[in-house]
């Protein structure tokens, strides 16, 4: 058993930490405050290959692995959770299902553009009445000659406003429930496809979360991803991978909050000494760090299992559950240790606390993760 990073991963960590510190951190407060999608950061990430980390070289990607990808989301999220989720949704939720389920023609068409970051990817499963109950899809795809006609809408779609390609799900056979859902690839600008309302969110405020609207969208059959009526399985498998990304995001938020707090408690003086001298501070920090490191081990284990191509669904659920709840707890403590200053927008920990909350909700709530974990125990 070896817990150490490979040589390549050590080199990668050096680069991504440096990139996050110099290119991403300076924009984090502004991106949050103005609810602005950091398109300039995406361009910089694209240039050095961050938008295509686990995509094979033959499709224009970096040919890296999921451990490296999770490290990227972690380090980006440690300074800006918005930037972390942009990469996570693009990679795990759009490029990955095309890579795993696409035809060779679909892979050739979409992966090089996604890997180079020329195109941004998004994923549309959630609907107003189909959240955790993903089987309640009301978006429909009706066969008509060589095409499918798509009608309906999706909500809470990360990257929506800036994406060029979307993996979406629609009912092709309502009578079959989950066995009647099919996945499709749809490009921006397809007639009848439009972006709706932009959400005003508590956290990750720069990530351009919007509604997708389909009004008699004509999609050729070659845009079907995977087989007819096999969409539910594709969605669930995609979310398994996505959970590693979100867990890495949560891990990064927690680590970022620790980094800020360690600096603050050494500087902040009360009762004539830095507050780092008080045992309460020390014990809080010890707990924050231990849980964050435990999250990291779970994330890396799940990512490594995915790299080894062994089943990892339960590991993904566990790392997402634990890292998300840890992020919430750690950011809460970070604000507490900052006192009144921590509650202001002068310090980044209040943003981190708002950003952390979503990790307990999207790509499967903590309750869903508990269902996945316990179902595997009791089967």
């Amino acid at each position, binding site marked *: 058993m070896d817990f150490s990073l490979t*040589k*390549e991963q050590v*080199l990668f960590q*050096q680069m991504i930490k440096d990139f996050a510190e110099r290119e991403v951190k300076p924009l984090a407060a502004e991106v949050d405050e103005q609810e602005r999608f950091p398109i300039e950061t995406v361009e910089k990430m694209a240039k*050095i290959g*961050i938008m295509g980390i686990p995509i094979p070289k033959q499709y224009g990607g970096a040919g890296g692995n999921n451990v490296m990808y999770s490290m990227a989301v972690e380090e980006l999220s440690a300074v800006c959770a918005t930037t972390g989720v942009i990469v996570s949704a693009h990679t795990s939720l759009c490029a990955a299902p095309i890579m795993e389920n696409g035809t060779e023609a679909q892979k050739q068409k979409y992966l090089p553009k996604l890997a180079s970051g020329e195109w941004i990817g998004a994923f549309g499963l959630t609907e107003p009445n189909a959240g955790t109950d993903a089987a309640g899809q009301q978006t429909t795809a009706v066969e008509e000659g060589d095409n499918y006609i798509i009608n309906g809408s999706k909500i809470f779609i990360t990257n929506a406003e800036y994406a060029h390609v979307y993996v979406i799900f629609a009912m092709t056979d309502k009578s079959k429930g989950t066995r009647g859902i099919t996945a499709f690839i749809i490009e921006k600008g397809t007639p009848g496809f439009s972006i709706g309302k932009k959400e005003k969110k508590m956290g990750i405020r720069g990530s351009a979360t919007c509604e997708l609207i389909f009004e008699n969208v004509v999609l050729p059959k070659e845009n079907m991803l995977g087989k007819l009526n096999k969409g539910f399985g594709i969605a669930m498998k995609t979310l398994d991978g996505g959970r590693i990304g979100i867990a890495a995001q949560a891990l990064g938020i927690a680590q970022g909050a620790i980094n800020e707090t360690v600096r603050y408690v050494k500087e902040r003086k009360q009762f004539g000494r830095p507050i780092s001298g008080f045992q309460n501070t020390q014990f809080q920090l010890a707990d924050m760090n231990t849980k964050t490191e435990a999250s990291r081990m779970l994330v890396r284990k799940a990512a490594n299992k995915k790299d080894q191509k062994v089943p990892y669904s339960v590991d993904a659920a566990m790392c997402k559950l634990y890292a998300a709840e840890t992020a919430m707890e750690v950011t809460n403590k970070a604000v507490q240790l900052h006192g009144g200053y921590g509650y202001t927008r002068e310090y980044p920990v209040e943003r981190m606390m708002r950003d952390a909350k979503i990790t307990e909700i999207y790509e499967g709530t903590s309750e869903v993760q508990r269902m996945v974990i316990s179902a595997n125990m009791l089967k």
Partner: protein
Amino acid sequence: MKIVVCIKQVPDTTEIKIDPKTGTLIRDGVPSIMNPDDKSGLEMALQLKDEKGAHVTVITMGPPQADLILREAYAMGVDRAIHLTDRKFAGADTLATSHALAGALRKIDFDLLITGRQAIDGDTAQVGPQIAEHLDLPQVSYLEDLKFDGEKTFTMKRHIEEGYQMLEVEAPCVVTVLSSANNPRYMNVGGIVDAYQKEVEVWGFNEIEVDEKNLGLKGSPTSVHKAFARGLKPAGELYEVETDEAVGIIIKKLKEKFILN
């Protein structure tokens, strides 16, 4: 065009602390990085490669762990990496180092040799110019910018105390580059994935062309007399006065220190 860039692994001096008791550097746990001036020199070479096409080789002299900066250079886009390492090179000062590097460079064909101006651990700025002397090549130090006409002439912008000097120099030549010349690129992710698949050529004394007496401790005339931590500056004097009076005080103080007559 063939370019060689000399790079050095140094402790990240922004992370270094001084032991208050002994006055020596605490090197434990301090990360090692590619020297910033050298990295800008490498970026200059890679920009020439992007614009005009060039074959870029990096070379470093150092202990086995210096391999890391050669992998980093591969991930940034260089074509060849050479690691000079041998017990015979150990204990070298700038002169012995420049002899070893020159010995290796005699074995490599190049049109342009780039070094950083100086390393942040020693701040001597000697190795680049010394290499040029050993190889009997023209040298231009403190470079801010360099353009290539595509044939054999470089136009160079050199930083001098009062401003800039513009020069035209023919290949082959040696230049030393300032870190202010550019913003070095990040390693490319795909390049990182491949960095350890590529070969780093390891050269020792037997692979280079140099007189052994010029190497290592024997070839190093520099001896360190004493190392000490610079004392803290005393607190300044603070005057809260109107501008006119402030000017008077400043002039008086400068005269006291014989900075003004």
